[in-house]
């Protein structure tokens, strides 16, 4: 048996070392909450690893040792008393350890759950749809409410309140590097606090099975300093400018004539569809189709012509765009910075 455990430990170390990638990893925290949880994880891990090692050692010894004498089927009682003491001691230690783990876990839970009761909290309403994310930056002044999709910017170092809703089935909002997950359930609002300390780009993914394209329902959280965030917010609040270039003008007319207007909205044009993502500042987003493809003109073309090949089952319609209309449309969409 010892050969096995040698192999096994080498295997573990090899695998553990390979989790250096920081993409979407729960043990690579970038905020106070995920930091506390990661600390709790390593605490649990090492304590329980020690217990595991002890139990395995005892098990191996029971395998290796030669029984001293041919003990009768029913050993005399007093030989048992030594064992009785060790087993009761082991049980008591288990109970104490579990109690310690319980206290530590509940304390961490309280610390990570409610970050702060400031009044002027940045609130983002997350609405899960079947296979994309709608984000709305809430604001007391209705004209400053920003609706965007599949990507949010957050000021560094400031707590953010996430209000979770869903338009259809149960999804789950989860950015492993920042905080634990919170389900989005139709007919109720779930809340969660989020705070980021190190600026950067963090990927999140839906983690409650929500149908055909549950695998392709990702989003990005971009943490940046306060001033860059405010600049981004101002830019996002502006409607799309009327294009001057004739090709872009042609693209804009194509967008308004085809079926796009039934689902998508571009502020500054007459398109005001609510079923699909808001495309006013589409080109400013890093990804396309909820984190599936990088946002390049080639990917956008492939996505518009045949979305079912990229996300089979998606609710994006398959529209036969005439060849001479396609390029201007792509140019126009990529101009919506």
């Amino acid at each position, binding site marked *: 048996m010892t050969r*096995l455990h040698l192999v096994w430990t080498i*295997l573990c170390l090899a*695998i*553990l070392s*390979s*989790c250096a*990638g920081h993409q*979407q*990893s*729960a043990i690579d925290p970038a905020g106070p909450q995920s930091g506390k*949880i990661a600390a*709790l*994880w390593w605490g*649990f891990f090492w304590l*329980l690893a020690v*217990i*595991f090692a002890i*139990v*395995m050692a*005892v*098990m191996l*010894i*029971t*395998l290796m*040792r030669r*029984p001293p004498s041919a*003990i009768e*089927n029913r050993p005399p009682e007093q030989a048992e008393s030594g*064992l009785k003491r060790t*087993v009761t001691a*082991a049980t008591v230690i*288990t109970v104490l350890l*579990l109690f310690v*783990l*319980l206290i530590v*876990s*509940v304390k*961490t*839970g309280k610390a990570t759950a409610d970050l702060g009761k400031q009044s002027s909290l940045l609130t983002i309403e997350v609405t899960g749809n079947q296979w994309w994310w709608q984000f709305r930056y809430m604001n007391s002044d209705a004209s400053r409410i920003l609706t965007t999709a599949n990507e949010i910017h957050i000021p560094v170092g400031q707590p953010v309140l996430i209000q979770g809703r869903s338009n*259809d089935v*149960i999804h*789950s909002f989860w950015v*492993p590097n920042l905080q*634990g*997950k*919170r*389900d989005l359930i*139709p*007919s*109720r609002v*779930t809340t969660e606090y989020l705070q980021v300390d190190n600026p950067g780009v963090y990927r999140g993914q839906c*983690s*409650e*099975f929500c*149908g*055909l394209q*549950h*695998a392709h329902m990702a989003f990005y959280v971009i943490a940046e300093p306060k001033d860059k965030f405010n600049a981004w917010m101002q830019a996002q609040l502006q409607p799309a400018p009327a294009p001057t270039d004739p090709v872009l003008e042609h693209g804009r007319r194509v967008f308004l004539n085809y079926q796009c207007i039934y689902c998508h909205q571009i502020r500054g044009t007459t398109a005001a569809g609510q079923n699909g993502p808001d495309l006013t500042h589409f080109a400013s987003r890093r990804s396309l189709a909820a984190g*599936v493809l990088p946002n390049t003109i080639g990917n956008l073309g492939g996505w518009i012509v045949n979305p079912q090949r990229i996300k089979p*089952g998606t609710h994006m319609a398959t529209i036969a765009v005439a060849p001479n209309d396609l390029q201007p449309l792509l140019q126009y969409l990529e101009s919506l910075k």
Partner: protein
Amino acid sequence: MSATPDAFASVPSEHTELSLLENAWRHRPGILGWLSVTTHQAIGMRYIVTAFIMLLLGGAEALLMRTQLARPNNTFLGPDRYNEIFTTHGTTMMFLFAVPVMEGMAIYLIPLMLGTRNVAFPRLNAFGYWLYLGGCLFLYWGVFTNTAPDVGWFAYPPLSGPQFTPGKRADFWAQMITFTEVSGLCVAAEIIVTIFKMRAPRMSLNRMPLYVWSMLVQSFMVIFAMPAVVIASSYLLSDRTISTHFVNPAEGGDPLAYQHIFWFFGHPEVYIIFIPALGFVSSIVVANARRAIFGYPAMVLSLIANGFIAFGLWVHHMFATGLPQIGEAYFTASSMMIAITSGIQIFCWLATLWTGRVRRNTALHFAYGFIAIFVLGGLTGVMLASVPLDLQVHDTYFVIAHFHYVLIGGALFPLFGAFYHWFPKMTGRLMSEKLGKINFWFLFIGFNLTFFPMHILGLKGMPRRVYTYPVEMGWGPMSFLATVGAWIIAIGGIIFIVNVLSSRRSAHFAAANPWDAPSLEWAADSPPANYNFEHLPTVASRHPLWDPPEERAVVTGLRNDRREVLVTTLMDAEPHHRYVLPGSSIWPFIAAVCVSIGFAGSVFNPWYVIWGSIISGLALIGWFWPRRPFHMEP
């Protein structure tokens, strides 16, 4: 292995007594006879074989999933097919393999271990099996007609509701549960009554083998947990067929109500699968350490405590739904508490092995494999009990690794150990130890290669139930490693089948008690006759076959011309009265067919509930209708 003198050699009596007994317990010939069998060995074997076929189907689905996930952006399976396969994999393994195989083993072993000749209600036993078979056929009829469920094995609404799952897919899932839970309740009821009322004389409660205790606790859990899934699957079925609003968020229904009622059943369900495995390990350890179990009262109390606590921790499946913190803290505590009862059992087994003369046969290898894997699974379970950690790893591959460690490690390894331990009793032939050890190592290494990397995949943020994943996430290498491991497990499974098939016909015959084990089933011959014991044994201690021969007594005076067993009192098993069991009967099969027609039809047309209950009522009347001779002479 010195064969002890045959403990219960037949009391010298004329040849006619034995032939009378064999005649009374003989199965009827032909197809009709095969359908009307009511002896517990035959029905137990049918459960085990059918459940094993379901294991192979579930395993095949697992291989398909692993092949699709072997590398990023794979196109081996589309999303629709993948969702169907992962749901059918989960549903088959949980409802059609795990619970039925544990019940099948119990139906086979409990009467033997209690020193009686059949379960308390033989015809109900047959009815339970036919309904279970109906459930398997019903689900796989759906799978092969593109109507396999595709909403996950716990089918959360509103995704599984009428609006977001078109067609009859979720209905097939919900109705299959109706089949298996009714069959599960039948078996649980008869196991409880058999253990309470039909034990060998003087086998008081503190002399019962630990496997019998584990089946008693499991059966009570089935009695109290299965009604919860009756409600959950009926919620879904009535919402999808007669448009009630149980889980319709718009009309006051609540998806969380479904989650609460499902997991109130869901967590006891996984303990229903796991507790019989504790009984298997206890039997294997006692037989192969050749000494009494250490701390028998502690083991029994921890089994019972395990049964109670299992009903108090279901909300740890729902920590991410934003429940109030106080509730979550309570459920963290109760989820951690259950680690204590499992811990005590592990310590007691280790203490038994520490002081025993350990015989390292394949069954004990699986017991060691169980301890190694289950302890790791239990420790990751303690991690999942803590709310902040669970919020990070819930519904990720970390959870998949955890529950495979506690289900494959906790239930499948002891089950394989039990096969190797009781195969000689069931077939009269010993399995090859060499092939057995190869089989163990393939399963052990394949298992760890498959599921240990999943802990790391989970921590690296890979969610559950994704049919593919992007290249840049870095999940490719470990997913491929898991796929390689999965194929190694498959090879291990094939080796097991080869071992079984080659041993059934081998000349390597087994004595009545090849492992010199203490419990009563080793007093019957291998394989046992339909009536198990020619004279029912009595018990003088917790280890009847280890008692000196002069202390053993047998029961005489039962009539041999009809199927008679002894009913004993509950606490001290003093003989109370004789109980005449029904013989072979075709009516359980007819009743099961009528009930199946009612269940299957009600998925397509709600009126089948009425017609189904009418024909089932008629079949039951036919079953209970009094037949000659009415009066039983003493």
